Structures are given as structure tokens and as C-alpha cells.
């Protein structure tokens, strides 16, 4: 590892001040950032570790919403009885991230702020119409994910929590790369009073996206059969050694049908 400056602030204010300086990077769980730094794919000159900000970790369910603090670990979301009761799809999703050791350290805030095109949480945020809360403002998930590893977060802005409205029904289905456990295709389906949303991670060239044709069909008839014949175009989908764009396009339909059947 190359040399860098390490900060571990004990207040959100000082964290924001430190994070605002040039070439600083926020360290949450570090499950992506540290390997990325080892490979020099990222080379921040200073790290601002949020692990002393215990106020940023925690789960609460009230008023039809699940609020999860940014520093809440995947293992804690997966094991939360409250989350499993309110949005079982979200607990399932958290339990399928990485492996047990990664889930003990990795955080929801880190995952969402990083917006890896194959990460799981962005699909849940967009499908459930979540609100991303920062130290400065609230951002609708619709406006948050702006492209590959890109979000609406500004310099020095720190994601502090995520508010998920509880849907009537939802499910997440993931076709995993068996080595990395990232999604080759992951589909999150949510039905609520506002309608049906279908989001896809792992497949899009620009990260997470919605599938309007599925949403329209499922709004009329929430059944796997309703989307069986709808072809997702391969344009704009990733091709790599694991799966080409045509394969991924087909997989989106398969995983979406499974998600509709699993929705509860």
C-alpha cells in the first residue's frame, strides 16, 4: 500500500471538513476502497474514517418507513428482525452481499455512495423510491445515481442514512458471479401505492436502471406471466468474460420473473 494520511474524526462536522479537502476519500467499511487502493485504481492522499461515528449506525422502523444509518453493516441489516418483517427483500439482499466476513464490515452507506454498477443496494434504493440523507440535504434515489461509480454527492458531502418506504410487496433476485459474488444480473421488484418499479443492477453500462416495459405490464397484472414475452434490448448492457450483453438481457427477464414470483 502507498502512503497516505489517516484521520478518524469523532464528529460529523470535522469529518465533513476533512472530507472536503482536496483528494480526500471517506472510509466506511473499506471493503471496496482498500482493495481498490492496493491496486492503485484509487489513490487518495488522505482517508477520513467514519468508524468512530457510532450515531451513523442503526436501524429504525416507524411511520411506514425503514431508516438505516450509513455505517450499518450488511450483516446487521441481514440479521435485523425489524427489517425482515418490514421489507424482507432488503434483508435478503443484505445477506447475499459478498461473504460473511465482508458483511461484518461493509456498510450500506459505503455501498450506495460508491455506486458500483454491480452492487446490490442501488437496485433496492431505486426500486423502493428511497431517500438518501446526507449531512447537507435529502436526495431522492431517482436523482442520486448519476452513472458509473458516480452519484449526486458533492465534495465533502457525507451520506448519513437511507430512508426506505415500506412497499406492499417486494423481492430481490440475484444471479451471482460465483467468484466475486457481485451481481451478473440482479433485479429488484417493488409494488406499492405509487405503482410498480423494476430495477436492474450488474447489467447496465451506466449502473442501475429501471425497466419501464416491465413496470407497465406489472402495473396491470402483477404476475410473472405478464412479462414473459417482453424482450429487454441488449443495447447499453455490459459484455465481459462472464456474460455478454445478449445473455444479460435474457437474464434480466428470467430474474425479473423470479422476483415477481418471490415478492411478498
Amino acid at each position, binding site marked *: 500500500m*502507498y502512503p497516505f494520511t*489517516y484521520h478518524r474524526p469523532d464528529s460529523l462536522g470535522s469529518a465533513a471538513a476533512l472530507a472536503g479537502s482536496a483528494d480526500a476519500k471517506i472510509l466506511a467499511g*473499506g471493503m471496496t476502497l*482498500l*482493495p481498490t487502493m492496493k491496486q492503485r485504481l484509487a489513490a487518495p492522499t488522505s482517508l477520513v*474514517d467514519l*468508524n468512530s461515528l457510532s450515531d451513523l449506525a442503526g436501524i429504525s422502523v416507524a411511520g411506514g418507513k425503514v431508516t438505516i444509518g450509513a455505517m450499518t453493516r450488511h450483516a446487521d441489516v441481514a440479521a435485523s428482525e425489524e427489517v425482515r418483517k418490514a421489507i424482507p427483500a432488503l434483508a435478503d439482499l443484505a445477506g447475499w452481499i459478498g461473504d*460473511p*466476513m465482508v458483511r461484518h*464490515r461493509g456498510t450500506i452507506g459505503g455501498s450506495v455512495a460508491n455506486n458500483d454498477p454491480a452492487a446490490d443496494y442501488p437496485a433496492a434504493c431505486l426500486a423502493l423510491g428511497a431517500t438518501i440523507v446526507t449531512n447537507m440535504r435529502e436526495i431522492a434515489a431517482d436523482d442520486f445515481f448519476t452513472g458509473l461509480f458516480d452519484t449526486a454527492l458533492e465534495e465533502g458531502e457525507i451520506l448519513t442514512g437511507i430512508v426506505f418506504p415500506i412497499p406492499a410487496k417486494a423481492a430481490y433476485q440475484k444471479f451471482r458471479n460465483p467468484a466475486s459474488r457481485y451481481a451478473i444480473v440482479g433485479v429488484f421488484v417493488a409494488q406499492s401505492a405509487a405503482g410498480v418499479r423494476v430495477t436492474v443492477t450488474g447489467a447496465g453500462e451506466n449502473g442501475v436502471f429501471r425497466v419501464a416495459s416491465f413496470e407497465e405490464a406489472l402495473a396491470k397484472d402483477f404476475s410473472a406471466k405478464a412479462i414473459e414475452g417482453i424482450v429487454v434490448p441488449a443495447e447499453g448492457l455490459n459484455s465481459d468474460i462472464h456474460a455478454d450483453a445478449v445473455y444479460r438481457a435474457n437474464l434480466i427477464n428470467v430474474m425479473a420473473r423470479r422476483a415477481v414470483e418471490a415478492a411478498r
Partner: protein
Amino acid sequence: MATVSMTVNGKLVSRDIDPRTLLAQFLREELRLTGTHVGCDTTQCGCCTVHVDGKAMKSCTLLALGVDGSHITTIEGLAHGQELHPMQAAFRDHHGLQCGFCTPGMIMTAVDMVNRKGTNLDDQTIREELEGNICRCTGYHNIVKAVHYGAEAMAGTTKAAAE
């Protein structure tokens, strides 16, 4: 340089380190606890697994400063003197290793698994929970068997044996 303090296998240690020092490096190079292995260095193989405040984590992907003040248990902290931890004994008795490189991580993950899932583990649970540990020798069958019997042997002694 920065000062880091943590409790490793029950003993409080404090050292001045370069901030870039990873926990795995700290354990191996500063404390000479070389039972924690670094296989891939990319968070995939699980050889470097240790317990941080009772939870299994990959020490190649943690900064030592990031776990300042924590309680760490490494493979060296499991046995009681000459008496192996039941999970270590099970790996030996059931041929859960060949070259042994992945074994410290396998055992630390297995003990964490028992702490969370109990001592009566079915094969599917064991295989799912071992997702983050890679072995190049055994084909996993004997590792799964060893975890199964090691978990049974831990029954009744789980709490004392865990940390």
C-alpha cells in the same frame, strides 16, 4: 507514524505504525503472529480471517488503525496451551487440510459460524458460510465434514471456546 492499541489474544499491545499498515501486516510483522496468512491480498481467499470484537473479518482488508481499541482473536488465540480448540482438532481428525495454508482462515470462519449459527450445522449452511474462504487442495468435502464435527464438539463449550 501513529500509535495503535488493541487487545490481541487477550494481551494489550501498543505500537507506533505507518498509517498504511494493514491489520494482517500488523499481526504478522509487528507481533510476529504468522498463523494469520495472506493468500490473495484482494479480500477473496479468506486465509487472513481473524475475529474483530468477536466477528470474523478479513485482516488484509482492514487498516490496523481502523480497528484501534478492538479485541482481536487470531488462530494463535484459540488453543489452550497444548490442547487444541475443538475446531482445530476436528480439522486434524477429519483431514480438513492438505497444505494447510487456508486452514487458519477456515478455522476462524468456522468458529464464527458456530457463534452465529449454533453447533448443529447442516452441510448446506456450512458450504454457504464458507463462501469467503478458498482452498486449493481439498475439494472442500473434508473441510465441510471437519466443520460439522468441530461444531458438534464445541457444543457446551461454545462460549468459552469462542474467544
